[in-house]
């Protein structure tokens, strides 16, 4: 018996699609900027470059979120957390019996909460990209599946 939870941000744009989109918008606006540079009005090009930099950074930030996924596999004895980023995958394993799920309140009023799995002094964050609502719901579910420290509730019944 095992429970598997996949966490992934929704991205409607593929990497190739993002590159095509960004390239086309750069080219489209560059045509106008170059036209004015040829007339001697070079400051337009500076602002074009700044704007494209901002657009590129925004797109990159949005796309990077899509690369960050987490898989939680909870078995009778173990919890494994696989975190995939652009750099590759990292796997963490915890003994289910000794692990504990904690939802830490935001450090300040307008911050975000942090959901962690902790055991033997190791602390790993789960679902940092989720909305507050999703994170709270995930915390509830994990607490049910993992139980408290020194607990191993049965996995087959899910009453959450």
């Amino acid at each position, binding site marked *: 018996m095992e*429970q*598997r*939870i*996949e*966490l*992934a*941000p*929704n*991205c*409607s*744009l593929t990497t190739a*699609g*993002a590159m095509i*989109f960004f390239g086309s*918008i750069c080219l*489209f*606006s560059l045509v*106008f*900027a170059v036209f*004015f540079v040829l*007339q*001697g*009005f070079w*400051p*337009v*090009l*500076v*602002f*074009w470059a*700044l*704007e494209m930099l*901002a*657009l590129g950074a*925004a*797109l990159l*930030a*949005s*796309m990077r*979120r*899509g690369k960050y996924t987490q898989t939680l596999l909870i078995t009778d004895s173990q919890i494994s957390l696989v975190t995939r980023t652009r750099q590759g995958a990292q796997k963490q394993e915890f003994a289910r019996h000794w692990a504990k799920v904690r939802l830490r309140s935001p450090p300040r*009023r*307008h911050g975000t909460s942090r959901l962690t799995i902790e055991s033997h002094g190791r602390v790993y964050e789960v*679902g940092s*990209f*989720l*909305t*507050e*609502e*999703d994170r*709270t*719901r*995930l915390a*509830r*579910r994990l607490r049910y599946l993992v139980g408290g420290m020194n607990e191993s509730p049965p996995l087959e019944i*899910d009453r*959450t």
Partner: protein
Amino acid sequence: MAQSHASDAAHHDDHHDQPATGIKRWLFATNHKDIGTMYLVFSLIMFFIGGAMAMLIRAELFQPGLQLMQPEFFNQLTTNHALVMIFGAVMPAFVGLANWMVPLQVGAPDMALPRMNNFSFWILPFAFTLLLGTFFVPGGAAAGGWTLYPPLSLQTGDSFPMLIFAIHMMGISSIMGAINVIVTIMNMRAPGMTLLKMPLFAWSWLITAYLLIAVMPVLAGSVTMLLTDHFFKTSFFNAAGGGDPIMFEHIFWFFGHPEVYIMILPAFGIISEILPTFSRKPLFGATSMIYAIASIAFLSFIVWGHHMFADGMPVAAQLFYMMSTMLIAVPTGVKVFNWTATMWRGSLSFEPPMLFAIAFLFLFSIGGFSGLMLAIVPADFQYNQTYFVVAHFHYVLVPGAIFGIMAGVYYWLPKWTGHMYSMALAKTHFWLSAIFINVLFFPQHFLGLAGMPRRIPDYAVQFTDWNMVSSIGGFAFGLSQVLFAIVIVQCIRGGKKASAKVWEGTNPTGLEWTLPSPAPYHSFSTAPEIH
């Protein structure tokens, strides 16, 4: 915030994290609804400030002679009325509507870059404090018209750098808003929400964002060159140093004409949402509407010369700009006919959003027709710098952009607040607005055709009667907008509970109508299914 979904069974509960309270909720807001609300409130305040300037202008023009102010101050008012209305009222209102509605319509939990969203809003109050502050510095505010043509604009007093900095800040805010919309639509659409399935409002904003991104560097570059000409002795537009002041007009209108469409395309999207709902029919030719918006956007880049016929240009250029300008009538005609066909044999009802949408259709068309007249080169030589031009662009921007915004607010307000507003008050607001906008602007066609120049505080006595009529219309139109504010405040404070669908007996399309009213603080915690 990234939209997320868990592959295990989703267990819905009623928990929603609540927004912080007090001023910090607004200062540090990253939620698209909070930021959308702030944009809309800011825009309403600027609408009244710009409107107050218009009232002063119309009071001075009520009769010939100088009554209330010196000509310099009159020119400061006309210049800043335009800047406030364009950059402070209309554009932020559309960005506010986009903030509220685009994530709801595409099924995203929020805008793609919430912190940037906060920053792009909070730039605006500083920008407009700076702009309005120019009235209080030696030499007064800018008085050379919102187009800032040199060398006249370079004669502005100490306020000149404040003006340029304020315009830069408005531009930065607009660009950040556009980037956020474009990234949200491209990367955060719910699974199954293909581009062609997107509602027309989201589509119109996507195209508007493209326009903004393409033209804003041109505006930023042009005003920066004005600044360097003024303070650093460059000669981009200084004929004595080898520059060309006419080239500023080319650069400015290369930005300025698409800017007109930036202010009208989102209104097209709003109208395309409202007419089908209250006609109880699907939008006629929905795909052709998207292509028409895209065509208008494309054409907006190649027509700027029509603002400068009277400057002098080769006949071939005059013909090109005349023809290309007239060509815009084709996609615009497609839209007007599609909207009409949507209503044709529909089961119409006339709630406030529908009333504003129908008024938009009639009155915007009048602005479109006078635009066609202005596109004709020899006719433009006559109309140029007269009140006919003032009448034309006000018919485009007030019943076009502003009625579009009001239609949108009346359409979605119950979704935002969870309450229905007073239909009687809203309809009164509509009828007063629709009647007095014509009393205000239609006589200006006659004044222009009779030769009354624009941007003057005094005029020949033969123009008196129509100016009086226009001013009366202006005061009545201005006062009737107080009703708009009352309706909104009342609706926020309470009222009959609105259902999720809001408009009972209709079948509004779009994901926003699947959410309860008011829309929860976080909209889509799991990705909605699109069929």
